[in-house]
C-alpha cells in the first residue's frame, strides 16, 4: 500500500558527524510543528538515539520483539512525554545483526508508516550490512557531513550507494560549520561541499557548545526551545523539510568589512 508517509534515511558514511543528533532534533522539531513522527534507531550495533532523546530508561520492547512478533508495534514504541507527537522505535539487541535482513527493515518501516507522517531512520556508520538494511525501507535520504575532507569523501561513497538504490530525493546537511574559519578560508566553504557532492543543501548547522550540553542532559535543543544557534538551524531544517521556504544564510558571507575585503581578494584577475 502506497502511503504519503515520508520515510527519510539519515546517513553519513563516516561516524561521529552528527547523524543521531540530527535525527533526535529533527524528530522533535517535526513533532512540534504538528507532524506525527517516529524515529527508528537502525544502528543495532551501537545504539544511541534513546540516550540523546532521554528515553533510555523507558525502553521495554524493541524492534527485535516486534519483528519476532512477540509484541505489538505500539508496545515497543516509546512515546516522548514532553512531545507526544514523537515516538522512538528502539534498536534491538546487537545479536539481531546475525539474522537481520533488508526485508525485516522494510517490514518494520511499513508498519510505522501506517501510523506516522514522518519516519526518520537513524543509519549506522559505514557502508556495509547495517547500511544496506537501513536503506531498504527508506524512500528519501538526508546525507549529513562536516566540512572536512574525510567526512566529505565518505559522504560521497554513501551518495553513490543511495543513487544506485534509487533513493530520491537526497539532500545535504552540513554540520559543525565554523563561520570564522570559513571566512578566512581555513575550512571548506558551503559551496565547495555542495559543488563536490552535487546535492541540494537542506541546511547547515553551526558548531555550538550547547549541543554537547543538551546531549549530556538527554534533552534535544529543539525540545527545550533553546535560543542557541544550532537549535535555530535544526528547526529551520525541519521547516524546509515540510516545504517552507526559509532562505539559507552562507555563514562566510556576512556583511563585515573583513568579509568585503575577503570578497575583493577573491576577485578573479585572469
Amino acid at each position, binding site marked *: 500500500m502506497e502511503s504519503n508517509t515520508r520515510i527519510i534515511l539519515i546517513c553519513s558514511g563516516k561516524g561521529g558527524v552528527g547523524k543521531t543528533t540530527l535525527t533526535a532534533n529533527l524528530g522533535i522539531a517535526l513533532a512540534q510543528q504538528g507532524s506525527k513522527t517516529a524515529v527508528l534507531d537502525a544502528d543495532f550495533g551501537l545504539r544511541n538515539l534513546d540516550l540523546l532523546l532521554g528515553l533510555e530508561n523507558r525502553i521495554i520492547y524493541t524492534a527485535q520483539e516486534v519483528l519476532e512478533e512477540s509484541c505489538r508495534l505500539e508496545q515497543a514504541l516509546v512515546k516522548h512525554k514532553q512531545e507526544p507527537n514523537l515516538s522512538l522505535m528502539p534498536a534491538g539487541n546487537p545479536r539481531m545483526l546475525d539474522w537481520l535482513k533488508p526485508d525485516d527493515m522494510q517490514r518494520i518501516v511499513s508498519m510505522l508508516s501506517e501510523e506516522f507522517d514522518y519516519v526518520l531512520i537513524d543509519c549506522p556508520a559505514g557502508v556495509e550490512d547495517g547500511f544496506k538494511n537501513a536503506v531498504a525501507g527508506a524512500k528519501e535520504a538526508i546525507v549529513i557531513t562536516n566540512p572536512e575532507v574525510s567526512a566529505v569523501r565518505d559522504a*560521497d561513497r554513501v551518495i553513490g550507494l543511495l543513487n544506485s538504490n534509487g533513493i530520491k530525493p537526497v539532500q545535504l546537511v552540513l554540520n559543525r560549520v565554523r563561520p570564522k574559519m570559513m571566512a578566512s578560508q581555513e575550512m571548506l566553504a558551503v559551496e565547495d561541499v555542495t559543488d563536490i557532492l*552535487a546535492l541540494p543543501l537542506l541546511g547547515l548547522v553551526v558548531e555550538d557548545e550547547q549541543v554537547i550540553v543538551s546531549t549530556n542532559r538527554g534533552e534535544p535543543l529543539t525540545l527545550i526551545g533553546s535560543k542557541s544557534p544550532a537549535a535555530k538551524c535544526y528547526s529551520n531544517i525541519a521547516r524546509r523539510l515540510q516545504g517552507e521556504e526559509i532562505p539559507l544564510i552562507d555563514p562566510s558571507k556576512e556583511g563585515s568589512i573583513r568579509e568585503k575585503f575577503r570578497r575583493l581578494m577573491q576577485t578573479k*584577475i585572469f
Partner: protein
Amino acid sequence: MTLRDIINKLLRRQSSSAKTARERLQLVLAHDRCDLSPELLDQMRREILEVVAKYVEIDLEEGAVSLETEDRMTALVANLPIKRSLMNAEADEVKTT
C-alpha cells in the same frame, strides 16, 4: 587566479588550507568514483599513448591523461599535442625517395 593567489605567490605564502582541501578532495573523489587506482590509471595512460602513437606522432612529454569530475560525472580527459600525422610522414618519405 584570484587577487589573493597573486599576493600569496608574491609573498611566497602557502595558499589557504580550504583550497588545498578542495583540490585534494576533487582528485581523490575522481578516483573513488570510478574505482581506479593511480597504478591502473598510469597503466591505462601508457597503453592509450601507445595506441595513439601508432597513428600520430605525439609529444610524450606534454601529453596528459587524467580524470576530471564535475557534478558527479567523471570524465577521462586526454590532452595529447600532435606533432604530425604518421600518414603524412610516410607520404613525405615516399616523395623524397
